[in-house]
């Protein structure tokens, strides 16, 4: 694994930590949904980098599924918010 790839993975991990700070602090549910959306984007990128580092091309399918799940989750959360379900932020 080359140092640049390692450095990129470290940067993405730092980005995940920062997104987690926002997920933890809130203050409202939409903010947390935005943080989760960012989580999934960073994870798709990380899976791509791991695919490069390990030379396993089929990891890309995982990335596709990850992006799809994130999109569905965002739509679901937004519908939940608009319908006015019980919230505890």
């Amino acid at each position, binding site marked *: 694994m080359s140092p640049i790839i390692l450095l990129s993975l470290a940067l993405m991990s730092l980005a995940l930590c920062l997104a987690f700070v926002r997920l933890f602090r809130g203050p409202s549910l939409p903010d947390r949904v935005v943080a989760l959306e960012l989580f999934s*984007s960073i994870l798709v990128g990380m899976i*791509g980098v791991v695919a490069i580092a390990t030379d396993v*091309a089929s990891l890309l399918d995982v990335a596709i599924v990850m992006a799809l799940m994130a999109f569905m989750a965002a739509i679901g959360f937004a519908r939940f918010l608009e319908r006015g379900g019980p919230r505890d932020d």
Partner: protein
Amino acid sequence: MTDIVGEGLVLVGALFMLLAALGVVRLPDLLTRMHATTKAATLGVSLVMLAVALHFAQVAVVARAFAVILFIMMTAPVAAHVIGRAGYFVGTRLWEGTLKDELRPHYDPLTHELRSGLETTEEERRGRDETDAS
């Protein structure tokens, strides 16, 4: 040569993702946070996927990498739109330095009705009757 370009793309993509995460922590309200994450994270993922396409250089992998880019570019704006819309509906507070909220004078949060300000008087009366009746 391709290795160097690929590694550069990966590094720039990771930096963009870090920028998005920094924005989501530092910016003051929901809409500004969304503006940071949606665009920067999309660009970061696209750059990383370009690097994947360069690294493997097989038709099947390149097609899948471009499929990921296309999918992200199609879904990120839609997801941002629905979250922003839901956030406005549930009444998240905007940043106190916000200069203009053009939706506020035209939008009724109780009935979810939007007025253009160009209605004829008859339409306006009908709209008022409907809100009175409900």
